[in-house]
């Protein structure tokens, strides 16, 4: 039981918050634009 809780704690320690996911996704998108994968985003 203790080991399970420890594993759960370890797992949740590595879980990203919604905030952090938004930053990761936005930075990834910015890098893809910088790398020229997406050349033009229309509006």
């Amino acid at each position, binding site marked *: 039981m203790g080991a399970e809780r420890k594993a759960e704690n370890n797992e949740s320690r590595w879980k990203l918050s919604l905030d952090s*996911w*938004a930053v990761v996704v*936005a930075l990834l998108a910015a890098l893809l634009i910088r790398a020229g994968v997406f050349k033009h*985003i229309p509006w």
Partner: protein
Amino acid sequence: MADVVTVPQVQPVQPALRFLRVIPGVLLLGAIGYAGKLLEQNVGAYAKAHHWTFPNIEYVLWAIVLGLAISNTVGVPEIFRSGVATYEFWLKAGIVLLGARFLLGDILKLGGVSLVLVAIEIVGSLAFMTFLGRLFKLKPKLTTLLAVGSAVCGVSAIIATKGAIEADDEDSSFSIAAILALGALALFTFPVIGHFLHLSDRAYGLWAGLGVDNTAEATAAGALYSDAAGKLAVLVKSTRNAMIGFVVLAYAIYWASKGQAQAVGNKAAFLWQKFPKFVLGFLLISVLATYHFFNKDQVGALANLSRWAFLLTFAGVGLRTNFRDMRKQGLRPFAVGAIGEVAIAVFTLGLVIGAEKIFGF
């Protein structure tokens, strides 16, 4: 051999399944947002072609109104709910990408001014809401939640504080409902007052960032006025959001000292845990843009991507606002919130007008 006890377990939702579950709602956000964009383009052109006098209504308002109409008539079916809840994610991603349109110098200059105003606004709002809560004999923790929600950053601040001061679920849903209802009202009243007072884009953006509580509503209220006002509202609101950790920490220590919440162990870890990470992402993109990591076309592409993310957010703001649910939450917390919000709106308007005269922006 020991007996085997079978404990019913809740199976964790697989990431792939979780991803599939959000797709319908995200598509709904996209459809409503895009419909708003088409309405902005076509209604104006149609009115012009028929020589009608019709105000130019931005996609922001169309998307919110369409979302509100669905939410308050047919309601949002269960299948769409997980996806609609992602609007917060799009908001934060959009703010990070918006960093490309700010040069570091602008952030330091405007951020410096807004930091002073934000500090005054937070202290003034916390003091006034606490006074009102006592006057209306609200429960002390409910007063704390309403005060933090109005002073710092709406729903996120209430959720962060609820955990730290061990407030009841009922108190937090009261406060969230009051803040959301008042945010929805601010969305429609702020631009009208701004135009009535002929506020400049900068003054209005500052006011929206200081006076509107929830980040999504502050972003929308700014964008409803003008693009420049929207940019500034996001900057000021992000400065306010950055203060969340300090305010929550102060309240956590206060309630722990009264023996009504757990003591805070590592204060630095507490601050980092509560700090909104999207503010760091916004600053990072802005630093990269300042040092020409992106060329002009790429900055344009990032700005457009940010607009698409906000488009989904605005649709979500409308869809998650249900006036019937809000009415169920009771009148007293709403009355305290409403009186407080009006006072804070007037107070922050005075601050902005004063700052405009002093700093001459």
